[in-house]
């Protein structure tokens, strides 16, 4: 569960919500675009510093979109877009069909200059500024001429991207299905008062949630109803979901706790199950882009760093290490999914991430027997530190993943 707004997961949720409001044809096209280059460095260069004819200056205001040239040689093209208007604008490079997005910059605020760097193949394009972020934008024709430096997304790379996207979608669906099955079993046990069995299943069922946590969290209505911790409640807010039941099953750390009645148990159990069913339905329709997968991988490690390694997530049951492992599992699947693309762009980063994931898993294995982990309370401070060091070691290179995959 996220406690703060605008974490990567929140951003992903926002972005998904926004995208879904758009033309669906554009959404699917996004999977292969937005290649913002990782190599741009110093200040945004002015048009004067353009010595290869591939730097384009764009000035956008309320009713104009001035593009410094409508003709560049193929290769790495840089658009420096300055918003001189009073409203937020966006900039697009579109294919000649006017629908397929080759590259975009969102959220260019008033007086801001933002940069789009992409590999453009020869062909006819359209540029578009979208002041106020509405309508089809102010468009002009844009031509990329044949040149020696042409770089295209190869058919091979496209295949890798397609594979990554479809594999990840399948993974999320599978985990969501397993979550639903396990949740049904769990709530049945809980409602029947078979508490020992329910306690044993609780962390294992949640594993499926934690593996896809960044996706599950992207549904801003479901997440708080399903995964809110007591400490994160605002005054007067109703507490439902996994952790409400967790407290009822492990009331040892609670002061003056009153156990839930059978009727109350049924209420919370059915609520959790209904939300899990809704989640599963929604997940079936989701599509992903490679940057979302890469960002999701990073987001899962952030979940570990902020909630699991600190022992805050499972305050009552102390089963944090299950969640820890599940977050790492999900992050690793995301990474492995985009790894074939990464191998072609930055093999060193791929190797380093693979090593660090392995070290992380090896370390967690020390606390694991079969599917079960030791209680968080059994960890010494030194062991927690060692786990935290491994999370840091993995998270730093992981923070470079998205940009490297898109480069």
């Amino acid at each position, binding site marked *: 569960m996220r406690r703060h707004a605008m974490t990567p997961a929140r951003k992903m949720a926002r972005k998904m919500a926004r995208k879904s409001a758009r033309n669906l044809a554009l959404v699917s096209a996004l999977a292969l675009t937005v290649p*913002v*280059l*990782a*190599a*741009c*460095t*110093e*200040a*945004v260069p002015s048009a004067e510093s353009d010595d290869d004819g591939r730097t384009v200056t764009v000035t956008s205001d309320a009713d104009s979109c001035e593009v410094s040239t409508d003709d560049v040689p193929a290769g790495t093209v840089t658009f420096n877009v300055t918003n001189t208007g009073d409203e937020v604008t966006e900039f697009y490079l579109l294919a000649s069909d006017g629908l397929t997005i080759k590259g975009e910059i969102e959220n260019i605020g008033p007086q*801001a*200059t*933002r*940069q789009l*760097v992409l590999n453009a193949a020869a062909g006819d394009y359209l540029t578009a500024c979208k002041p106020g972020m509405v309508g089809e934008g102010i468009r002009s024709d844009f031509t990329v001429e044949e040149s020696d430096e042409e770089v295209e997304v190869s058919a091979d790379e496209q295949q890798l991207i397609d594979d990554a996207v479809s594999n990840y979608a399948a993974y999320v669906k599978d985990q969501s299905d397993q979550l639903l099955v396990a949740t049904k079993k769990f709530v049945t046990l809980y409602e029947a008062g078979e508490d020992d069995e329910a306690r044993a299943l609780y962390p294992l069922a949640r594993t499926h949630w934690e593996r896809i946590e960044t996706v599950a969290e992207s549904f801003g209505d479901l997440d708080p109803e399903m995964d809110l911790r007591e400490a994160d409640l605002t005054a007067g807010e109703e507490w439902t979901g996994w952790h409400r039941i967790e407290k009822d099953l492990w009331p040892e750390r609670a002061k003056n706790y009153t156990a839930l009645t059978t009727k109350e148990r049924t209420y919370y159990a059915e609520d959790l199950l209904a939300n899990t069913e809704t989640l599963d339905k929604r997940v079936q329709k989701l599509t992903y882009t490679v*940057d979302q997968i890469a960002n999701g991988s990073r987001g899962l490690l952030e979940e570990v760093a902020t909630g699991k390694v600190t022992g805050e997530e499972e305050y009552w049951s102390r089963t944090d290490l299950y969640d820890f492992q599940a977050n790492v599992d999900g992050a690793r699947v995301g990474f492995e999914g985009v790894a074939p693309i990464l191998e072609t762009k930055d093999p060193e980063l791929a190797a380093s991430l693979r090593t*660090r994931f392995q070290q992380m898993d090896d370390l967690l294995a020390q606390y694991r027997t079969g599917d079960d982990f030791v209680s968080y309370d059994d960890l010494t*401070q030194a062991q927690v*530190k*060692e786990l935290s*060091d491994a999370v*840091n*070691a*993995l*998270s*730093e*290179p992981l*923070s*470079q993943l*998205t*940009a490297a995959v*898109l480069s």
Partner: protein
Amino acid sequence: MAGISRRGLLGGGAAVAAAGVAAGGYALGQAAAGEQDVAEDGGLVYAFRGEHQAGITTPAQDRLHFAAFDVITDDRQALVDLLVQWTAAAERMTKGLDAGPVGAVDGPYNVPPDDTGEALGLPPGGLTITFGFGPSLFSKNGVDRFGIADRQPAALADLPHFPADVLDAEKSRGDLCIQACAQDPQVAVHAIRNLARIGFGTVSVRWSQLGFGRTSSTSTSQDTPRNLFGFKDGTANVKAEETAALEDYVWVQETDDGGDWLAGGSYLVARRINMTIEVWDRQPLDDQESFIGRTKGTGAPLSGGTEFSEPDFDMPGSNDQPIIPVDSHVAVVHPDHHGGMRMLRRGYNFVDGSNDLGGLDAGLFFIAFVRDPDTQFLPIQQAMAKNDALMEYLRFTSSALFAVPPGAGEGEYVGQALFT
């Protein structure tokens, strides 16, 4: 928004004045370039590269962030790679540049910046970054992780337990250390934060300590500041201007143990000394001065004169006792009573908030640089623990010893001679 870099905001601050500008020639011991940038903000730039590491004879800056690290890999190459990266980042930051070549705000939007940004708009601040190697880098639990155990000087051993040591083991020792000193606390913190970030996966921060005010002067151009007892201390410090004394008491010589890689370097002793402030404050002024052996006002020895007058330990006082009590701090630790052994002290006052009882968690983060800890530190600490009246008000809560390699020359990384 683009184009912001730390030096870019200094308004031509990149101009480098001639080395001779340095008052009293205290650039001695630094690179021949002795880069001194007297920017309009008053901030200095000290060259990172040189014969000796900066941050030792450099006139003590006002602020400190000191960090100790554990190396969490057994991979020698990973350690060397980190030292290379640290050297590059340290050189950049001491010039007032961002930690990485891209910078805090000029990079692409989908990558975390390679500088954390809190020093944007701040001058270089006279930042020095000094690296050290602890005994456990050479051998940890009997394991020679990096193939350097045979190069560990005998003097580089864990400090023994001293009376009044109540050490927090987790906040003592370390495989590596970094001392960052600057005129601005944010500049010092920025340095440690970015270096720690670069080190993730190779090292883990073991402990770190902030110091808010220098307690030593390392140049005759500086006043002696006061510690939290309110006294001037360390008056007999080795100063940057004492060229011969530096060779005798600070810089490891080629003929010394470990001199093949450590010559031109030094040993850094770090001791976190908590003061029982509230109890001290209830002592009559007369007693306070007797404990220290100096007057609280001017810092002159009780035998008279000014701050820099030599104390006369034989001057008789009342009741057939010397005017400077034999158990006063100055009498116990003075070089005259230790065969002339001196050290270069470079400590900082610290306050880490308040303790559970409402008292200040405060004291002196003692740092001293010596050529040989066995003769220049251990006997003095032992004498102090045994005889010093001041001990009543002190608790030692952290302790560490590091070998500080010589400065890195052009194209070298810090500590290179140890790994070649």
